[in-house]
């Protein structure tokens, strides 16, 4: 199979109904840094499951930051749930429905105990203390973290932090999930569990990952970041023959998962 051209790509996007996330001509570079996005356009439809790949430093995390309004692009338009994002207040509303899992779990957890951290989102959304508590306990149970409520967040292991972070995001029942490398450092059982959970909820997902077998099982389309732009790279099922234009090209090859 060949690469889809950009023209085909944009046509495909136009056909999508109710896009949940739309980026148009985004230009961005960090202060004095290299250009990260150079006229990037991208859209994700309702309940789309999108895998985002690209080499280290290609701007995947930055893209998720742009979508959630943590990083303001120099130019370009961002629409979330059909609404154009022009000021911080727009993002504040949008973020209530976006669940963003950071690449680094240490940045995500800030309350002393696990329960308080998970309940932080629901409390901000206006649920009562009791409702928030119940929601948080259920979210923890769903991830196999029953009994973790009173653990101290910064004393958790790396994988546990990642799971608790995921709970803090899922508890808010987001409409769209932005997951930045959700599986790094997880054992195979937990890995399988996350796949199961992601497949059981009806949300739009953008998942950044370097693990192709994970993307194959959780997403349906793959996009790749390259030279400041984003490109449609095909269906997740064909990940192996499709995506690797280099170094193996179209040559059949295997991965050591």
């Amino acid at each position, binding site marked *: 199979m060949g690469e889809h051209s950009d023209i085909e790509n944009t046509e495909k996007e136009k056909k999508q109904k109710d896009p949940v996330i739309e980026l148009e001509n985004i230009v961005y570079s960090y202060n004095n840094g290299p250009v990260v996005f150079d006229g990037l356009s991208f859209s994700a439809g309702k309940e789309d499951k999108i895998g985002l790949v690209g080499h280290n430093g290609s701007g995947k995390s930055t893209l998720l930051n742009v979508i959630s309004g943590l990083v303001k692009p120099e130019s370009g338009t961002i629409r979330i749930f059909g609404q154009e994002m022009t000021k911080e207040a727009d993002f504040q509303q949008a973020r209530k429905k976006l669940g963003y899992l950071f690449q680094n779990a240490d*940045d995500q957890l*800030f309350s002393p105990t696990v329960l308080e951290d998970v309940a932080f989102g629901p409390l901000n959304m206006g649920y009562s*203390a009791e409702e*928030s508590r119940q929601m948080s306990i259920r979210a923890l149970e769903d991830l196999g973290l029953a009994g973790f409520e009173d653990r101290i967040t910064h004393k958790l292991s790396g994988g546990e932090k990642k799971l608790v972070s995921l709970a803090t995001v899922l508890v808010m029942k987001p409409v769209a999930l932005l997951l930045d490398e959700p599986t790094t450092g997880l054992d195979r059982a937990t890995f399988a569990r996350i796949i199961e959970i992601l497949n059981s909820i009806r949300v739009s997902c953008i998942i950044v990952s370097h693990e192709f077998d994970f993307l194959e099982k959780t997403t349906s389309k793959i996009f790749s970041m390259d030279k400041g732009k984003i490109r449609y790279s095909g269906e997740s099922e064909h990940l192996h023959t499709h995506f690797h234009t280099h170094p193996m090209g179209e040559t059949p090859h295997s991965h050591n998962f």
Partner: protein
Amino acid sequence: MILEPFAFENSIIHRLDPRLRLVFAVVFSIATALTQSFAPLYPALGISIILVAMARLDSLALIKRIAVVNVFVLFLWVVLPFTYEGDAVFIIGPLAATEQGLMLCGLITLKSNAILLVFISMVATMPVAVMGHAMGRLKVPPKIILLLLLTYRYIFVIEQEYQRLLRAARVRGFAPKTSMHTYRTYAYLVGMLFVRASERAKNVDNAMVCRGFSGEFHSLTEFAFKPVDSVAAVLMVLALVIIEGARWASILI
């Protein structure tokens, strides 16, 4: 959290409404601090000791806390009597201890211990997050509370970050010596610590904002003023009346 050794016990004091405890601790401290004579300090200290006893705290941790403050007080006892102007009571070599100096030391010792004990029993017995929330209910400005809570939270993170950097240096064979290399490494560590702290602050702000934070801290704890709180409130007012009464008596007489 790590340095809240008293917060998670379960005594009658722990069950009192945090708002009530906070208000009492503050009013008690002001009343005690304003005192210029010994008379009100005896009941004040007595009350604070009773409260600490009622809170049933871990005695080792308690002794440690008290010791820290009293080491400082001890320092005052060494210096103040010999430097304060007044009538000499006794003389050691070229130094004369004054009566006024000794009195002042006594006052400071009683005051600081009474206030310390009341804060340990009333305020240290609630998690800092709850304290922040209680302050919010008492109309303390949210920015101050936020500053307090985040400072408290991140002191430990920064300390950990420092330990992590130091460990990273050690596993690569770093052993401090008196050499340029050592100084430079420490300079890098400290510099890195600042960078990481500000980076971390930004990231945490992002994490909070992403989860709907808009400047106001909510808490899982709900406050309810129970009958036992009313009883406690009456007793607290009584305690304050005794202290203030003793103060006015000593002024008027």
